[in-house]
């Protein structure tokens, strides 16, 4: 539900509807996390839970960004390393490293992030659409951006991330 509202807001931003900037209502919440210096966010309705790093059972014959599978309360959940997925170098896991379990359309996937930051509101005025036609490969997973101060937070497109078809 919130998704539609946000999509609309993004579309309006894109079409240069400046009226929105004044209207600063809250559209929903995002959970933010860090990967390197960059802050990313995921809309809260997709987040099932956050668990600490644990031993991951490797699965053969999958791309390197799929780290394997883990057991989350008797459910087998595949784990994706977001760093590797976005083509960033791997770093050793620390005690800040977390797994965020996402659910979308009955598919559950865990993503490994450097650390979890915060949960914050999405304000209409802060939303901006991603620049189009950029040839950066991470771009395809970004749904829109949120500005707060000088910081830009990239909100991930969970549907795309989870449903992606092999190109």
């Amino acid at each position, binding site marked *: 539900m919130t998704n539609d509202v946000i999509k609309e807001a993004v579309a309006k931003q894109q079409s240069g509807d400046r009226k929105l900037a004044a209207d600063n209502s809250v559209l929903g919440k995002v959970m933010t996390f860090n990967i390197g210096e960059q802050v990313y966010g995921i809309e809260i309705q997709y987040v099932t839970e956050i668990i600490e790093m644990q*031993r991951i*059972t*490797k*699965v*053969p*014959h*999958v*791309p390197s960004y*799929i780290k394997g*599978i*883990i*057991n989350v309360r*008797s459910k*087998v*959940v*595949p784990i994706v390393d977001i760093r590797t997925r976005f083509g960033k170098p791997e770093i050793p896991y620390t005690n800040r490293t977390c797994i965020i379990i996402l659910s979308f359309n*009955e*598919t*559950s*996937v865990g993503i490994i992030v450097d650390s979890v930051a915060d949960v914050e509101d999405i304000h209409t005025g802060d939303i901006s659409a991603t620049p189009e036609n950029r040839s950066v490969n991470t771009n395809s997973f970004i749904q829109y951006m949120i500005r707060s101060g000088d910081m830009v937070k990239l909100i991930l497109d969970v549907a795309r991330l*989870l449903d992606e*078809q*092999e190109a």
Partner: protein
Amino acid sequence: MAKIEPGMEAMLDMYFYETNSLLEQLDEILLRTEQANAFESEDIKEIFRIMHTIKGSSAMMGFENLSVLAHKAEDMFFVIRENPDVITDVSFVYDLVFQVSDSYKAQIEMIQNNVNGEYEAMDFSGLIDKLLKARDALVGETKGEAPAPAQAAAQPAEAAPAPVQGSDKVTVRVFFEDGCQMENLRAFLLINTIREECSFLEYTPSDVETNSETSKEIIDHGFLITFTAIDNNDFVLKQIESALNVQSYEVISQAAAPAPAAELPPEPAQAAAPAEKPAETPAPAAPVKEQTAVEKAQAAVEKAQASSGAQKQNLISVNLAKLDALHDIVGEIITTESMVISNPDLEGLELESFNKAARQLRKLTSELQDTVMSIRMVPLAGVFQKMNRIVRDMRKKLGKEVDFVIEGEETEVDKSIVDSLQDPLMHLVRNCMDHGIEEHAEDRIKAGKPEKGTIKLSAQNASGEVVITVSDDGQGIDPEKIMNKARKQGILTKPESEYTIKEIQNLILLPGFSTNEQVTEFSGRGVGMDVVKANVEKCGGTIIVDSKKGEGTNFIIKIPLTLAIIDGMEVTVGDLVFTVPISTIRESFKAEASQILRDTGGNEMIMIRGVCYPILRMHEKFGIETDVTDLEEGILLLVETDNKSVCIFADKLIGEQQVVVKPFPKYLAKYNIKGEGLSGCTIMGDGSISLIIDTNTLIG
């Protein structure tokens, strides 16, 4: 696009279940009686009843086209019921009823696949026309043969309009089954069902449709209906009686009932067999003057219904999703149990009474598991019966004389397996009919075989597996033809001379293989047998072909009893744990340097008791880092499937464990994990995950 009436969704499942089982029953009766080539009066009544029930429930659900279709079929059988002798062309009637049954199934499937309550309503007008014509033809027969009264009975609605009883008001009090819920809506549906049969209709409480508070009143005091039937009160009473969830009804008053039973339109069906349906007898037999008579009759009705109710209670229908959930929970209990019993915290402690209790727990959970498994087991009879129908249709179309024999249909298999077996079996049976059995009976006679061909479908339990055989005594598979075709298709993988007869025969299971030059309606699209093979393998089974030219063909399918829980041997490779199904392991042993051989290509082999087996290193196959690379250091497991054997090399044996098979997450489905030797994963006692080896794909 038609829409499912709002508020009906909740009852759809029930409707599908009921209607589908009625249709299956119908098919069964038809197939059984067709062989005898005559309808028994019992069967006619049963068909009439089935059509009647379907008509009622379809009307209730608002599926008008289905209701009308059933109505017309019912009309036709009404005529037949009254005059069983009128049928001159039995096979015509059969074809018609089969068509009705098929149309029904097709429409119901469409409704089942509805999107947001919208479905495509099929047009049955052609079929309905046929039914009408058939009925008129039958009525015509009756006129010619039977005297007038019978005709009146045959067509109370049109030919002899409303005798006597029609003008009487009847008040009945209806009670619904305990705990069926939404009594007010059920009452409303009941009213809808009988509305078209009544010229006058009144009911209390009158606001059942809109006021859900009336449920309570209906539960406490019953639902009062006063009606005047257009033609026959008994008919309406019967409709009330057979309506969904109606537990009982009583006739309170039949205002001015001058009609003695004799003046009722003759009901030979009931008069002939009063004992058969005791519940119905009171209705026509009670022109009700004295209250005691009513009560007596009512008591009889209730008794009869109570007893039939008690019988019904032995079987309940359960949503499969609930069973799956139960099954999952049991799986988790078993996992958790191992977690508790072999908890690392307990190591080194003296725990006599704990161990005793643990043993007891283990016994109970394994009993629980067996019971849950047995709930999911269903006999193959349902699937087998459907094959009966296919043989019947093809026999007609192809003009081949064939006996169809079924054996071991009571054999039970997991529900999910039964469902996925239907398509492969259908294909095999069609193949036997189409390609197996000789085109002309003369060919059979020439070959010294009985004129009539035989197709046999049999099932039996054999050591944890179910073996299903589809066999025919037809022309068999000609290896030369197969070879030619295979050569043309370019699917041969080794020199022709190296193929054994058995291997040649099994070529027909490969994708893109179909020897029949002519594509027929039934088979021969070239996507036949490989689909069969894929389907069988999907449910963990195997299929082999065994055929002798000129004598016939056997297709042998072996499937596991259940998919979900297997006995596995745990082995480690590097830091991963694998589960190898024990059923595939022949032996496990340490290798000695003297046994190990290398061929010219550097492939490792091992000699065991004079037989040479290839060695498959798991760490290489799955790309795992491990310290154990010396064959003598690790462990070798000799595994065997489909007459192929290989020794797999792992680091260490951990032990035997019963594991609950879980599929890989959906997210991973796009990667070819399953084709590369893994069939799924399982959660072990300590909460870690082990990967289950699929010996078939591992070797292949």
